[in-house]
């Protein structure tokens, strides 16, 4: 799974998500089948199954709102199916993300037609998130060394104003860093278009994987719909 071309994984993921999102009947069987399919994928990829399944639950609080709305609207079944679908989608996305390094994933997404500007933003965010988080940590430590504490934060208090000021400084630093990065890019001949090194070759085994991994959810959905009818 780790060695498969990112384009093959992205294609299979898109098929999975569309098949899942558009399913209307036989949802119980379909969900069970998809869950087993994903669990098999996690085992094949040698990922910690329980940890990934737990991490995917992070989407549930967001879908809870819709579940409640459906419940209040008298259609609890729809709410439940929404929650299950979002959870299974999250597991599928995690499976792909965990088995594909970010640079390869971004190249794969570019091949899939995702606008390169959007991918650039993701790439830079991923690269500099840690740097900015580190700067924020340093500022937090410096504030703590002078007796600041989050417990003192109350709207309008001096500590709250100081924290807001620190956030503004962090923003200014991030902006300044962005300017420095732009200078460094221009210095090395950047003229607005990102060129990357040769992407990985799409092998026959990748094509076989893409076909099988796309066919599996389709077959499961057909089987679930037949079982339901």
């Amino acid at each position, binding site marked *: 799974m780790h060695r498969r071309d990112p384009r093959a994984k992205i294609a299979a993921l898109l098929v999975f998500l569309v098949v899942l999102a558009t399913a209307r009947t036989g949802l119980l069987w379909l969900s069970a089948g998809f869950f087993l399919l994903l669990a098999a994928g996690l085992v094949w990829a040698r990922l910690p199954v329980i940890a990934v399944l737990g991490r995917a639950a992070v989407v549930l609080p967001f879908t809870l709102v819709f579940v409640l709305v459906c419940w209040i609207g008298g259609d609890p079944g729809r709410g439940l199916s929404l929650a299950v679908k979002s959870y299974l989608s999250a597991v599928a996305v995690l499976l792909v993300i965990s088995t594909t390094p970010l640079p390869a994933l971004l190249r794969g997404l570019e091949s899939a037609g995702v606008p390169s500007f959007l991918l650039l933003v993701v790439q830079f965010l991923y*690269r500099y998130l*840690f740097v900015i988080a580190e700067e924020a940590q340093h500022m937090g430590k410096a504030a703590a060394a002078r007796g600041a504490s989050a417990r003192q934060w109350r709207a309008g208090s001096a500590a709250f104003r100081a924290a807001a000021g620190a956030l503004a400084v962090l923003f200014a630093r991030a902006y300044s860093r962005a300017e420095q990065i732009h200078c*460094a890019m221009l210095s*090395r*001949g950047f*003229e607005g278009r990102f*060129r*990357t*090194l040769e992407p990985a070759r799409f092998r026959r085994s990748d094509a076989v994987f893409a076909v099988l991994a796309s066919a599996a959810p389709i077959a499961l959905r057909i089987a679930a719909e037949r079982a339901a009818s």
Partner: protein
Amino acid sequence: MMPLIEVRGLRFRYEDGTAALNGVDFRLNPGETVALLGPNGSGKTTFVLHLNGLLRGEGTIDVCGLRLDKRTIPEIRRKVGIVFQDSDSQLFMPTVLEDVAFGLLNVGFERSDALARAGTALETVGMSRAASRAPYHLSAGEKKRVAIAGIVAMEPEILVLDEPTANLDPPGQRSLADLVTHLPQAKILVTHDIGFALALCQRAVFFQSGRIAAEGTLPDLIARFDWDSTVERSKSRG
């Protein structure tokens, strides 16, 4: 002998009105390594950002016989490679190899050539083992080496290093000095690190309030401006 860089009457004012350069004349000869010294805010970094057109002020700049203007900037950026003070700002690609190849791909090298040249540049700076690593996970010294590789790969004729020893421990500074000494390009070093400058530079210029206040040998300028951080030496002079 034609100088590699000749700057005449360079003036620059930031958008907020701050005058950063007030008529700088400067010359860099082939094979030379020159240190730019001076207090913080004296215009050293602003000056070097003009050398490949990142900032544009009044006055003239000639690089390898080319007058710097909008038309010649792409060519001049291949001739003047700047290694920035903060390596994190220079290493933005997901892997070390991709970062080193970034400039090569921009100036039109085929991917296979870019890959080969990037590999050679990493070898030059002793960082081949880190080719597939993410720049964020490198140490400060390693980042600096990779940043230099990214510039050296483009084979510039002039190398500008802005505070190259900032954040490096003493062994890291020594090893960087070794590396920089062996690079064949003419160099401009913006630095507060006198030991580093003494090890590398034949000549120095001293910036003050956006002007070159003096130029000469490093020991002369150090004595003239009392420009040494060593407490004992400062005391003995006092």
